[in-house]
């Protein structure tokens, strides 16, 4: 009986630690956040979804038809041991495929403009992963990022700003300016945190995979990327005459990618980390012909921008447009 207070005292440390951890967790996940950043991400993601779907449409039957590069039966066989499913496995008639193509495109357009965004975003995500499950064998990082973006944007009310929904809601209230103010919700924060954590995982494992390759240490990886004929869209091979520069670029890439998950959180290092993301993904987009992947990754990085920053950009842009349109 006498040693009870002693036991309690011994437990004080771990209990305090546990309470602090719980408080930290709740503060991280369950505080309110404005929607502006996610709304901007929705618009860009929607545009990417539309563009991607239009490009699939240029060779729809070659990828989804009865004699597709990878037929429905083959796609099903490839997924046999997995837990995937796509309604497109059961469609190969040209007429029906085109009807579905226009339906999917309509959903993506509605997602972009933000009309009935809550149900439409769920539909957009389901269609995105259904396309991915059917079209395996022709996919790359761009598709993975689109699936990530649509999945998390679906969680938040991302149509509450910069959308037709917001415009119509403001009109119903007879507001003169359809201003999407005051929409701070916990679900916005949960979606943002999930995007941030997922992005950290992508970079961490991207960096660790590079660490395993000796060519990223001696810089030859950077040369092999620049001198890659099939990827190349801008000839940067002249950089091969400055090997030390390639070695520096390779090391910067490895360290930036590996430590992104740590350096993105402090406010002092965030601009630097995001600036490097812009440079590296912009470079990949311009020089390696993967503009779509570059834009998708940059869009994913937007999740670290404060909503107030995004909205101040939007307000400045609106004022600028109003100024120009009101000019005599």
């Amino acid at each position: 009986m006498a040693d009870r207070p002693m036991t309690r005292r011994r437990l004080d440390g771990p209990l305090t630690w546990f309470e602090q951890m719980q408080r930290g967790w709740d503060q991280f996940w369950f505080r309110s956040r404005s929607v502006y950043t996610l709304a901007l991400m929705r618009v860009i993601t929607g545009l990417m979804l539309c563009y991607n779907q239009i490009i699939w449409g240029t060779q729809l039957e070659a990828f989804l038809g009865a004699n597709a590069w990878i037929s429905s039966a083959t796609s099903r066989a490839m997924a046999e041991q997995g837990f995937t499913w796509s309604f497109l496995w059961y469609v190969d008639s040209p007429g029906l495929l085109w009807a579905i193509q226009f339906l999917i495109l309509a959903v993506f357009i509605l997602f972009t403009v933000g009309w009935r965004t809550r149900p439409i975003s769920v539909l957009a995500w389901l269609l995105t992963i259904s396309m991915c499950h059917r079209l395996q064998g022709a996919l790359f990082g761009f598709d993975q990022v689109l699936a990530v973006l649509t999945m998390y944007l679906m969680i938040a009310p991302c149509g509450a700003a910069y959308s037709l929904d917001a415009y119509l809601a403001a009109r119903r209230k007879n507001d003169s300016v359809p201003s999407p103010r005051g929409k701070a919700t916990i679900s916005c924060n949960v979606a943002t945190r999930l995007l941030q954590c997922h992005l950290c995982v992508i970079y961490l494992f991207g960096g660790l995979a590079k660490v395993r390759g000796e060519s990223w240490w001696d810089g030859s990886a950077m040369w092999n990327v620049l001198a890659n004929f099939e990827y190349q869209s801008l000839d940067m091979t002249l950089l091969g005459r400055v090997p030390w520069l390639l070695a520096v670029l390779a090391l910067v890439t490895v360290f930036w990618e590996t430590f992104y998950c740590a350096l993105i959180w402090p406010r002092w290092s965030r601009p630097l980390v995001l600036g490097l993301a812009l440079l590296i993904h912009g470079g990949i987009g311009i020089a390696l012909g993967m503009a779509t992947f570059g834009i998708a990754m940059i869009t994913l990085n937007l999740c670290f921008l404060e909503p107030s920053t995004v909205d101040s950009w939007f307000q400045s842009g609106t004022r600028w447009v109003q100024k120009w349109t009101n000019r005599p």
Partner: protein
Amino acid sequence: MNSRVSSENDVWRLPVRRLVTAGLVFHLLAVVVPPLQLATTSSPVMRSPFMDQVGWVFQPYDDALFLNHGYAFFAPNPGSNFLLWARLEFTDGRQPIIVRLPDTDQRFPRLMYHRHFMLSEHFNGAYPGYEEPVDAPAELVVGWKRSRQIFKQREASMIRHLTEKYGASRVTLERWEHRPPSTIEMFQGRIPIDAPELYRRVDSDRGNERAKSGRGQGEVNGG
């Protein structure tokens, strides 16, 4: 509007938060597991037994949500690309042609070009080898047989696509490797990045590994 926001936030009471916390932990683990599985695998036989077990738990969720990725972009060592060349023969008097995946002469729209590039890269990546693994665990042999069966189905699907598209009587698929030149080859040897000597045909089912020159005369690109 603000009342709607506050009512949405009111839903997040403590029991809901704890339930969501459990979901979040599960989801984040599911995000981490596939790349960790890849990172702990160095060959089909050299895999982490622990990650195999963990992966088995999360596989349904990861597969269904399309989260089953390793994120190893340009890693561990970027190098050669693997291409697919299809030799098409005709019985109607047309000359044989070669259809290349990807077709580097038709890079627009770039996203479609990249889709074709990925078809060839993934096709090569799925090649399980010609010979059944010897002295390997039974599980590995079963896996090889299944991979082989799916690879052949994939090959047949691509052949059928090309046969129908071009009206060919015979289509033969060849897998080619294109390595980037070294800096010495490029700057001292003046070898361009698409020089024929940088292309090499990789092993086929006929079991022959032949070094061949790259682009021939009078070939038609397509795909």
